[in-house]
């Protein structure tokens, strides 16, 4: 490889005096575009060490290694120009790499593709690597998905991705990319964060090509060795696709707490059948980067919320992916690495002790008048917030209040909220239950039919998260369903009756008058 690189370099030197003006112009545009838009993360020299790199995990790609995870070519091969172009256009969801499709012009992107290749001596001058022939997807059925599940176990996907695909396999805590940084096994239930695309074709391609530079291997070799058939590999892709929702969850501002019919039992545990009747609402969470110390590597990137009430009590089920129940000695290496490499170092310098996983649900202390809501980051002195706090290392939930970050205080008696939490297969499921009304005046009363502001804070202790370093959401709303008012059944028929009578009356009047005028 090195020899060919050297030859290519010599050739390119030889060609220069020939006056390939267009080529130079392209390279000029590529460099200008790169320096302006890419260099602060990927570095002026393309080695992935720009000034912002330390704030990101995974780190920006090091172009000097010519190692690209999303390709159409065999593992170990270079990407095609089309592959690079697609990576620029799509970005890498779930990372800091944005999609550039409508930011840069076509010419800029083309020039950029050529310029990226100049960072590495591995790229040949004038030959384009050959993509794999990937074929088209096989049909999908329950049998195919069951077959895929069998292969998922046989080829040991679960070792990293976990039994239910939430990135919680036994090796997940030890995964490193080729540049020595910790890397999370993909959570297969969140396909909207897949690099390279969310569809079954994209998953199959990743299986065939591997994600070079990461621990994700390729399975083309297994096919070529005859250990597995192409249909079987497609079945794996279909199974993986089936782990994520059919459609990427949209953002809905309102979580509806379903009103139970008379006699139905309120679910107070995560494994209650009643939850299956209720559709979950997805709420995205992002790192807390508003007050010191900030946290740019949040583990919890979203929670699913379900709620129900029976007129007396309310239950809220919050579930989210988290590979382990912190603190867990298996993950202590992961934790010390992440806390060591993430900028900015605003937290106290001493090693953070074993920290649990945590969840805080936030409400205003009083229902706000009009549009006024407490500041979403724990309120302020004029508009306090009311909190439910759950921690993985204790069996109870605490009620508390805050008047700004750092002023949180939790009650130790008179608790009205109860909690049940369980970790299994890379997922926390936590159910809070509370009477709608309590005697404590610092507790918010849950009134039906009103949009009650609600937001979430989450921490993965073994990802180095505690205190202000965790993830959070903005305000959403909890709406307790009301019994359907009789108005809904009565008003439309009355309106129809009036309209009908009026129409009839008018027509009769006009007809009568017409008759009279006819007679006279």
């Amino acid at each position, binding site marked *: 490889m090195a020899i060919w690189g050297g030859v290519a370099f010599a050739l390119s030197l030889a060609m220069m005096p020939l006056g390939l003006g267009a080529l130079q112009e392209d390279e000029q545009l590529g460099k200008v575009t790169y320096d302006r838009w890419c260099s*602060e*993360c990927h570095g002026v020299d393309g080695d992935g060490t*720009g*000034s*912002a790199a330390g*704030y990101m995990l995974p780190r920006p790609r090091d172009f000097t290694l010519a190692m690209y995870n999303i390709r159409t070519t065999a593992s170990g091969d270079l990407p095609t120009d089309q592959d690079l172009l697609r990576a620029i256009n799509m970005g890498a969801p*779930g*990372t*800091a790499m*944005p999609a*550039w499709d409508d*930011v840069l012009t076509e010419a800029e992107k083309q020039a950029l593709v050529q310029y990226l290749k100049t960072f590495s001596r591995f790229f040949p001058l004038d030959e384009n690597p050959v993509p794999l022939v990937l074929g088209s997807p096989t049909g999908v059925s329950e049998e195919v998905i069951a077959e895929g599940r069998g292969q998922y176990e046989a080829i040991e996907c679960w070792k990293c991705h976990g039994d239910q695909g939430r990135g919680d396999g036994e090796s997940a805590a030890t995964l490193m990319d080729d540049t020595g940084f910790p890397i999370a096994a993909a959570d297969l239930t969140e396909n909207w964060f897949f690099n390279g695309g969310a569809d079954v074709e994209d998953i199959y391609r990743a299986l065939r090509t591997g994600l070079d530079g990461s621990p994700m291997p390729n399975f083309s070799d297994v096919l070529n060795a005859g250990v597995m058939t192409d249909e079987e590999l497609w079945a794996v892709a279909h199974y993986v696709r089936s782990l994520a929702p059919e459609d990427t969850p949209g*953002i809905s*501002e*309102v979580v*509806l707490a379903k009103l139970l019919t008379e006699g139905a039992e309120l679910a107070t545990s995560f494994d209650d059948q009643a939850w299956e009747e209720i559709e979950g609402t997805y709420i*995205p*969470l*992002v790192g807390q*980067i*508003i*007050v*010191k110390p900030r946290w*740019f590597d949040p583990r919890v990137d979203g929670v699913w919320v379900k709620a129900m009430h029976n007129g007396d009590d309310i239950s809220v089920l919050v579930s989210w992916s988290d590979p382990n129940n912190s603190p867990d000695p298996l993950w202590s290496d992961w934790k010390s690495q992440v806390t060591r490499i993430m*900028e*900015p170092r605003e937290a106290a310098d001493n090693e953070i002790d074993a920290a649990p996983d945590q969840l805080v649900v936030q409400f205003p202390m009083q229902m*706000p008048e009009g*549009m*006024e*809501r*407490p*500041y*979403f*980051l724990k309120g*302020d002195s004029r508009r306090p917030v009311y909190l439910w706090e759950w921690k993985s290392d204790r069996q109870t939930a605490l009620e508390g209040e805050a008047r700004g970050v750092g002023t949180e205080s939790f009650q130790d008696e008179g608790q009205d909220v109860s909690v049940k939490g369980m970790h299994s297969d890379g997922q926390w499921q936590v159910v809070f239950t509370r009477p709608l009304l309590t005697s404590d005046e610092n507790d918010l009363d849950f009134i039906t*039919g009103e*949009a009650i502001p609600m937001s979430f804070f989450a921490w993965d202790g073994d990802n180095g998260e505690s205190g202000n370093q965790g993830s*959070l959401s*903005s*305000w959403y*709303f909890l*709406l307790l369903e009301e019994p*359907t*008012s009789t108005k*809904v059944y009565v*008003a*439309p*028929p009355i*309106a*129809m*009756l009036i*309209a*009908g009578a009026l*129409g*009839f009356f*008018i*027509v009769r009047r*006009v*007809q009568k008058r*017409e008759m009279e005028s006819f007679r006279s």
Partner: protein
Amino acid sequence: MRKHFSGPLGKSVVILGVAYLLLEFGIAYIPPLFGVDSGPIPDSVLLQYMVTVAIGILLWVSFNETLWEEFKAPLHAAMVEPRQRRTRVALIVLVPVLVGLMTFNSVRPSIAAPPSLRSIHPAPPGQIDFQGRSMELAGVENPLRSVGSPEEHYLEGRRVYYQNCLPCHGDGLAGRGHYAQGFNPGPASFQDVGTIAQLTESYVFWRVAKGGPGLPNEGAPWNSAMPAWEDFLTEDEIWSVILFMYEQAGHEPRTWEEEGEEH
């Protein structure tokens, strides 16, 4: 068919129909064909526009006696002509059904979030308290534009931006960083002509330094996730990132002369 639409009544119905389609769907879907962002208009606004169109039509058909007679004729015929008995019955059934549906729509329970209106650019103070000292803002230009090397200020600003602003406001400065979906209201797009392009640099300095918590009363309901950057950045860092934003987005800051002319 043509006969039905050539009279003033038919034309009115066609105009109302076209107006409805344009307002309900045209506004949302036509501008994106030309690369302009758009979205659906609220029902209340739609109703207002439709009423305006209807009044316009009434003004037109009542403009003179002949037109008014022509407008009424088909209506009258539908009510009295023995041959139009079917139309008559259909109308007497359909109109009440329509009224019933509309009533149901307005009384059925909805699960919409309450509206969140806010003043996007509240009036700035003349001076602020910046990191414990008083700082004049009125009439102030970016001091970095008159000292040192613009190239260096730009690079310094870019570093500050990528280390701090990037997750929300994004590489493309369009408010689409990888954290953007976590916040409501979403981060400002500096590419938009309605943000930094119409503000002075000292206004931007105020918003950067004080962030969401420093918004005045009209900035309610205080959901902005913008940090108060005076807790993180020096004065020079803020001025440099402002300079970078204008340069990178290709906008010119509004100057105090323009501001003066307007008042």
